[in-house]
C-alpha cells in the first residue's frame, strides 16, 4: 500500500525564547505529519510547548523573544520557515488558519464583527466585490450556526456570548476554505454543553471541507472524541505518538499512562484516592536537557534515565515513544488494569 502524502510535515523543530531569565527551549526537536481530512491531537500540560509548536507553524511567535532555531515546516513542498513575508501572509488564513482559546483576545474589541471577517476575505480574494463578500460571510455565518447573522455582523465582539464568539472565530478562520485548521484549546473556556456544540461543528465542517485539523488541548476526553492520532508532549519534547485507539488502549510512555489514570472517571467509586503523578509540572526555564525530562516524576525511572536523553523510538509508522523502559512500563500498566 502506498503511504499517503502528508499535507504538512514538521521536522526537528526547535523554538526558544530569549528572555532576561535566560534562554528557554520551549520546543525541542519536535516532528510530526498532518494528513488531509485527518485530525492530529496535541496533548500536554501547561508549558509543554504545544501552543508554541502551533504558533511556530504560522510564524506567529512573539517578537523579539521567540525564535525558531532549527527545523523545517514543509507545506506543499515549500518550507514555511524560508518563505518570504509576502508569501507567508498569503498563506496565513488562506491555506492554514488558526483559532484560539479565548476568542475575545483574538477579536478586535473596537471593530464590528462584519469588518473583521470581511478584512480576511478582501485580503485573500481581492477580485471579489463587496456584495459577493457579504454574501459569502452571511452563508458562512449561517453554516456555523449563528442565529440572526445580519444583526450579529453588525455588533461588537463584547455583545456576543463566549460560544457565539468562538463560532465567529471559526467562521472567520474557514472563510477562505483553508486546507489546515489549527485549533488551540478552542473549547477550554466554554461550558460543557457549548463545548459539545463547537466540537461537533468543527467535525461537521471538517467532513464537509476535507481539511486537516491540528487540535491542541489538555483534555483527554476531547482527544478521544475528535482525533485520529495523538502527539503527547512533555517539557517541549514529543514523548509518545500513536493512533487514538492505541493510545487509550495501550499507552506506552509512563507519562501518558500517568495522565490517563489521573483523570477522575465517571465509573470510579466516589471518594477513593486517585492515581497521581508526583511532583510538579516543570517550568520551561528549568528543563533537564541531559536526561529524560520526566525522570524525576516517573515511577519507572532508573539510573540510565538521569544519565542520557532517551531517543524517540520509532516502532512503526503509527507509533513512536521516548522512553528507555517503555516495554516494562506498558506491561505493568496493562497488568494493573
Amino acid at each position, binding site marked *: 500500500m502506498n503511504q499517503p502524502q502528508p499535507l504538512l510535515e514538521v521536522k526537528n523543530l526547535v523554538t526558544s525564547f530569549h528572555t532576561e531569565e535566560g534562554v528557554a527551549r520551549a520546543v525541542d526537536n519536535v516532528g510530526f505529519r498532518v494528513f488531509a481530512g485527518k485530525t492530529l491531537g496535541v496533548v500536554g*500540560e*501547561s508549558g509543554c510547548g504545544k501552543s508554541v509548536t502551533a504558533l511556530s507553524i504560522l510564524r506567529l511567535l512573539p517578537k523579539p523573544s521567540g525564535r525558531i532555531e532549527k527545523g523545517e515546516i514543509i507545506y506543499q513542498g515549500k518550507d514555511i520557515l524560508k518563505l518570504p513575508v509576502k508569501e507567508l501572509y498569503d498563506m496565513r488564513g488562506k491555506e492554514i488558519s488558526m483559532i484560539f482559546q479565548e476568542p475575545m483576545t483574538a477579536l478586535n474589541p473596537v471593530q464590528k464583527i462584519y469588518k473583521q471577517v470581511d478584512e480576511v476575505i478582501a485580503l485573500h480574494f481581492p477580485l471579489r466585490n463587496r456584495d459577493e463578500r457579504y454574501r459569502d460571510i452571511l452563508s458562512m455565518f449561517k453554516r456555523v450556526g449563528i442565529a440572526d447573522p445580519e444583526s450579529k455582523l453588525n455588533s461588537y465582539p463584547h455583545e456576543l*456570548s463566549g*460560544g*457565539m464568539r468562538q463560532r465567529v472565530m471559526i467562521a472567520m478562520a474557514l472563510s477562505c476554505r483553508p486546507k489546515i485548521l489549527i485549533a488551540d484549546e478552542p473549547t477550554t473556556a466554554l*461550558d*460543557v*454543553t*457549548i*463545548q*459539545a*456544540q463547537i*466540537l*461537533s461543528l468543527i467535525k461537521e465542517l471538517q467532513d464537509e471541507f476535507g481539511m486537516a485539523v491540528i487540535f491542541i488541548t*489538555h*483534555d*483527554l*476526553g*476531547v482527544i*478521544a*472524541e475528535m482525533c485520529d492520532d495523538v502527539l503527547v508532549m512533555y517539557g517541549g519534547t514529543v514523548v509518545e505518538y500513536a493512533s*487514538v*485507539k492505541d*493510545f*487509550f488502549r495501550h499507552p506506552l510512555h509512563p507519562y501518558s499512562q*500517568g*495522565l*490517563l489514570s*489521573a*483523570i*477522575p*472517571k*465517571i465509573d*470510579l467509586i*466516589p*471518594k477513593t*484516592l*486517585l*492515581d*497521581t*503523578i*508526583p511532583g*510538579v*509540572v516543570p*517550568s520551561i526555564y528549568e528543563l533537564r536537557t541531559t536526561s529524560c525530562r520526566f525522570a524525576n*516524576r516517573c515511577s519507572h525511572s532508573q539510573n540510565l534515565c538521569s544519565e542520557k536523553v532517551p531517543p524517540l523510538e520509532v516502532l512503526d509508522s503509527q507509533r513512536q515513544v521516548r522512553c528507555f523502559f517503555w516495554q516494562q512500563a506498558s506491561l505493568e500498566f496493562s497488568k494493573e488494569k
Partner: protein
Amino acid sequence: MKPEPLLTVKDLKVHFPIQGGIFLRRQGTVYAVNGVNFSLPPGQTLGLVGESGCGKTTVGRAILNLIEATSGEINFMGQNIHSLTTPKLRQLRREMQIVFQDPFESLNPRHSVRDILLEPFIIHNVGDDASREKSVKELAERVGLGASALNRFPHEFSGGQRQRIGIARAIALKPKFIVCDEPVSALDVSIQSQIINLLIELQREMGLAYLFIAHDLAVVKHVSDVVAVMYLGKIVEIAGAQQLYKNPRHPYTQALLSAIPSTDPEADLTKKQILKGEPASPSSLPRGCAFYSRCPIGSEECLQKVPELLDLLPEENNSSQSGVALDAHQVACFKVPVRKT
C-alpha cells in the same frame, strides 16, 4: 436516624441590581440565585454543578455571608447567620472557610507563606507565638509543602502548590465546613488529582464538610456524596452522587452528562445529546421553566408554570445500593413522575 444537618439553606435568593444612568437608578435585576434549598450533614460533601452564570459561586459566597442574601435563611450549626451580631458571626466564621479557584489572586503577594498561614490565628486570637509557629509548621507539612516553604512568597510557587497554601489557610483553625469554589479548575491534570486526593484525605481526618462547586462533572462526582445541578439560579436536580450519574432524570442533567467527552475513543458519538442554544440571561428570566428554550421534551405546560423541586416516585428510583447520604432524589421537571405535594 439522620444526623442533624450542619448547614441548612432555605429558599435562598440573591438578586443584584443593575444600575445605570447618571443617578445610578435601578434599571433591572440579575436573578443570580432564585430559591435554593439544601442541607448538608457534617463530614459530607455536597457537589454543586452548573454552567457559568448559573449562580453556583454566588450560593457559596452567600452561605459565608460574603455576599448579602436578598432573602432566605441560612442555618449553620443551629444558628441563623443573618440574625447574628457581627462579633457572633465572626466567631462562627472560624468554623466556615473557603478555598478559591484562582490560587494566583487569592494570596497576598507581599506576605510570606508563614504570614498567610498565621493570619487566621491572629484574627481569631488563637494560641501564643510558640504554639502558632508550631501549628503553622504542621499545616505546611500536612498539605505537602514542607516547613521550608514558610519563608517563601506565593510567586515562588506553581499553581498546584499555591492551591495547597490556600487549603492550609482554610484548615488552619480546624473548621467544620469549607466552601471549595472550583478548587482544581485552574490546575493541570496531573496536579488536579493530587489536590483532589488531599481534599479527600483531609475530609477523612478532620471530619470536614465541603460544598464543592465545580463545572467538571467527573470531578464533582468523585468527591461528592450528594450532587445538586443548578440551572439559572435554581437547583433542577439533586440526588446521591452515584444515583444521579446512573439515573439522571432532568433533561438538563442528562444533556450535561452526555456532553462530557468520553475517554473511550470507540464510544458511540451518535448517541450524544447536544443541547441547542445557550442559557437565557439571568437578568431577564423567561416565564415558566427556565430551561424550556433548550429543552428537547418541553411542552405548553412548561411555558406556564415554574416546576418545583419534588421527590422522584420511589418506583422510579432504581438505585440498588444503599444511599450513602441522602435517600432523596429530587427533580424539578413536569415530564418526570414526581410525588405531588
